[in-house]
């Protein structure tokens, strides 16, 4: 040991201790960091860890069913079966081998095969890939029996909306479809974000979607870093959607649909006291089942290009000039406004000059001197021209609006149109000019600016026949077993029309159908006690040329009629009620381009009103408790 080594040893010791101390300081830093992560921030990281591993899966609730008033199912969920393949389970044979084996059992097209191979490549090996949708029971059984030879193939069960009565109730029920971007943005229901979720797109399905949809359940699952489900941690069952019971009688509905046949028409049958819609058909219609699995492009094109507009519910969204059916309103308004009395006689000479315009009656020979009763019965144009002139447009408009024209009647369906009931104010606002007096006269016979929906026609006849009460048509009887709060219920407020005025018009309507010279006499109901009253109407689709008027205006000879293209023929309208003695049912119909109401519109309403009376008044209905009118006694 020498001096030098001693010096070196001392230096080594000093520096080794320094090194050791600094190393301990670094260890201290590690411990500090550990403390920060595992104690100070522990709860935050615990949450993050749970968020990592726990996925919330939504469990879609079964959609509520829709029934008719007698409990017949109109919309239900049908189970659908699809074959899926899980790539990682198919490994022993391979995707191709498995598809070959499956192809020997059920049909697997070349396109299916390409799609499966493509999807398998794109998705993770544990994600099921659909091979075929909507398998038949037979196919399902075949696959299940052979499952041992089909590694990775399994059957998945899904729900699809099913409408057993197909197109007969298509417009009322609407349909369900995939959630659109806009719908996703407006609502905060997490269900809407499920890729396979369907919501109501139209009709009752849309109107009552919130009730039908139900509340989502949830399943907490533990997943790994690539999203594979390891196990279920917790499960909350959802609430199934409420069943909706409609006022519709599917028997009546299908009867109405059959009666309308191939016509392009819209018809509504109402209980005039309760406002319950017993049947409402817009024809042609669509089969809502086509939409459940997704409409194919060819069907869609066919719907769009059809001139009879099968996708539109014409009963609430089609607007037409009411034509002569409006004459009852003119009559009531004139009586109420004092322009005429029941005994006032106006002479019809076939034509008259009002406001410097020559106006013709449909009957070129004239009706002679007639009262309002006869004018309704024979649908005299001259009488109502004059009545309207005497009354003025604003009084006419005000009464017409009380009966439900010019605004939505408030049916519980989406897409209802308000129609137009003109007035001076309306004209000033829409045209910026003062009301042309000649239009008052046009309005008197339901021409000019007035347009109405077929539902409004039914509403008008109901409000006339029920003693002037503001009945509101509706479709929903019960939701989840309860009467919906938003439904208008009887007793309905009075329209403020004197019963005497209504009676005069009702008698006129009875005469239209049941007296020899009435315009609908050939279509009368002859069964005793079931007689109906009503009023016909024609709505011009185009204006008559002078030459045509020379040849006889509306009353063209058969040979010439047949030459008019379908699209240019007049619309035929009729509104009726029955039975005459104690009215219960109101019915309004429009047959597009139906030409003669007596030949197209009246026979349908005849059949419908007769059938309704037989069903409900003769006691042949399946359940007395659910009969129209019975609902009034319920809470």
């Amino acid at each position, binding site marked *: 040991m020498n001096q030098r080594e001693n010096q070196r040893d001392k230096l*080594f010791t000093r*520096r*080794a201790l320094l*090194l050791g101390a600094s*190393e301990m300081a670094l*260890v201290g830093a*590690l411990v500090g960091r550990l403390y920060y992560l*595992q*104690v100070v921030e522990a709860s935050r990281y615990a949450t993050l860890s749970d968020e*990592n591993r726990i996925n919330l899966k939504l469990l879609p609730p079964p959609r509520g069913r829709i029934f008719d008033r007698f409990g017949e199912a109109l919309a239900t969920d049908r189970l659908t079966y699809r074959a899926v393949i899980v790539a990682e389970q198919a490994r022993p044979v391979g995707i191709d081998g498995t598809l070959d084996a499956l192809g020997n059992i059920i049909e697997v097209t070349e396109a299916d095969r390409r799609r499966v191979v493509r999807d398998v490549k794109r998705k993770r090996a544990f994600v099921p890939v659909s091979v075929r949708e909507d398998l038949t029971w037979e196919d399902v059984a075949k696959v299940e029996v052979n499952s041992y030879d089909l590694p990775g193939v399994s059957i998945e069960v899904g729900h699809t909306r099913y409408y057993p009565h197909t197109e007969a109730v298509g417009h009322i029920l609407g349909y369900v479809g995939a959630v659109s971007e806009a719908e996703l943005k407006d609502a905060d229901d997490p269900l809407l974000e499920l890729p396979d979720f369907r919501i109501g797109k139209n009709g009752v399905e849309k109107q009552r979607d919130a009730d039908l949809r139900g509340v989502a359940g949830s399943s907490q699952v533990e997943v790994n870093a690539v999203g594979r489900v390891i196990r279920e941690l917790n499960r909350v069952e959802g609430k199934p959607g409420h069943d909706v019971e409609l006022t519709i009688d599917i028997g009546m509905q299908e009867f109405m649909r059959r009666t309308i046949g191939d016509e392009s028409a819209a018809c509504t049958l109402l209980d005039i006291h309760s406002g319950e819609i017993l049947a409402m058909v817009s024809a042609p219609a669509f089969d809502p089942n086509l939409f459940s699995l997704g409409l194919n492009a060819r069907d869609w094109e066919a719907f769009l290009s059809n001139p009879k507009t099968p996708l539109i519910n014409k009963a609430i969204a089609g607007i037409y000039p009411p034509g002569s059916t409006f004459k009852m309103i003119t009559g009531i308004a004139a009586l109420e406004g004092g322009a005429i009395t029941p005994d006032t006689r106006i002479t019809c000479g076939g034509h008259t000059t009002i406001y410097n315009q020559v106006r013709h009656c449909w009957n070129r020979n004239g009706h002679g001197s007639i009262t309002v009763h006869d004018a309704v019965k024979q649908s005299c144009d001259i009488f109502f021209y004059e009545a309207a002139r005497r009354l003025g447009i604003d009084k006419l408009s005000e009464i017409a609006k009380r009966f439900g024209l010019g605004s939505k009647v408030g049916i519980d369906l989406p897409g209802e149109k308000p129609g137009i009931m003109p007035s001076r104010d309306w004209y000033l606002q829409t045209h910026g000019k003062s009301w042309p007096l000649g239009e008052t006269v046009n309005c008197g016979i339901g021409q000019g600016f007035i347009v109405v929906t077929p539902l409004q026609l039914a509403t008008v006849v109901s409000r006339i026949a029920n003693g002037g009460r503001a009945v509101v048509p509706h479709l929903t009887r019960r939701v989840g077993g309860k009467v919906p709060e938003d439904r208008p219920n009887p007793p309905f407020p009075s329209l403020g029309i004197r019963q005497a005025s209504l009676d005069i018009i009702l008698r006129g309507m009875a005469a239209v159908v049941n007296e020899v010279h009435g315009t609908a006499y050939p279509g009368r109901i002859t069964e005793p006690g079931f007689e109906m009253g009503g009023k016909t109407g024609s709505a011009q689709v185009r204006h008559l040329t002078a030459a045509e008027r020379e040849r006889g205006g509306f009353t063209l000879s058969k040979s010439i009629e047949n030459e008019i293209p379908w699209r240019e023929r007049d619309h035929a309208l009729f509104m009726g009620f029955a039975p005459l003695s104690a009215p219960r049912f109101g019915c309004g119909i429009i047959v597009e381009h139906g030409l003669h109401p007596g030949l197209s519109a009246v026979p349908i309403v005849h059949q419908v009103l007769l059938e309704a009376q037989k069903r409900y008044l003769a006691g042949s209905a399946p359940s007395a408790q659910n009969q129209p009118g019975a609902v009034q006694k319920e809470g």
Partner: protein
Amino acid sequence: MVALGATLGGFNRREMSISQKLWQINWGLVLLVSALAGVGFAMLYSAAGGNFEPWALRQIVRFGFGLVAMIAVAVIDIRQWMRWAYVFYALGILLLIGVAVQGHVGGGAQRWLSVGPLQLQPSEVMKIALVLTLARYFHSASVEDTGRIFFLVPPALLVMLPVGLVAKQPDLGTALMLAMGSAAILFMVGVRWWKFALGFVGLCAALPVGWNFLHDYQKARILTFLDPTRDPLGSGYHIIQSKIALGSGALFGKGFLQGTQSHLDFLPEKQTDFIFTMLAEEFGMVGSLTLIALYILLMVYGYAIAFRSTSQFGRLVALGMVTTVFLAVFINMAMVMGMIPAKGVPLPMVSYGGTSLIVTMMGFGLLMNVWVHRDTRIGRGVGEA
């Protein structure tokens, strides 16, 4: 001198037999090393979801080999280690060049060399070779020698060559460890403070230049470290998930085999780089502190051996090995806790990996060797022993 030494101390035997040396081996240290390896086996068993395959069993077999190698290293005469130090160094450099020339691509970097059926990581071997080389160089250096700047040029070159080669692979973590371990030895032999300061300033000046030599993924890693949210699903994802695993482990952990982050694969490379994270998740702060305590105990042993050793070579080797292990532990833990950016630095004795395990155990073998030969006199020159 040897004769003199032999006459001075009664127990300073001239030569010990193998059995005497085995008797001298510090079995407490062996126990400590085995305890660390045992923690590793447990975590590898858990990492495989409660299976000995594919990691735990292989690690146990390697540990068996490592144990034999460790004892063998411990009983070989310390003077032989000193004699062959430069040869090992040369071999290590050759292997590193070999990697650079025909390296096997692994993990985006060339780190592996295939020797027959074995996969060798020369940078790990270099850790020991460099310690031995520097210890030999400074064994006979006096304080005056180390004060001369000219005397420090050869060791500086000896360090820079392997550091450069490893950095080129590129394996920044290991290069950093080699450089810092060497710096610790230079510090120990008494190199002046200001020279370290000078070297540090020079390094900082070289940083912008060095940045340009970095691979894009390395740049990304450093940038992501500075701002982990920069790339939450890429490079930053590992660190974020590691911190979540650590933090959610809390004080007592989620329980053995119960770590959700690791078992649901949110944690990357849980059997190698992130094995400490897994331990911390399953056993909490209690478990991680226990492991750190084991390492501290190991270091205390190392320091005690260094202080007890009578030869400069011996204590430099002892502290060099301790420091190398410490650096690996610190860098690995700091990395998984998001304190420093790094990758590919395994946790000594615990992480899965053959070369790392066996080289680390050979390092502990050298530590024991110093203990066994604590009183062996080593001359200035190799041949003089």
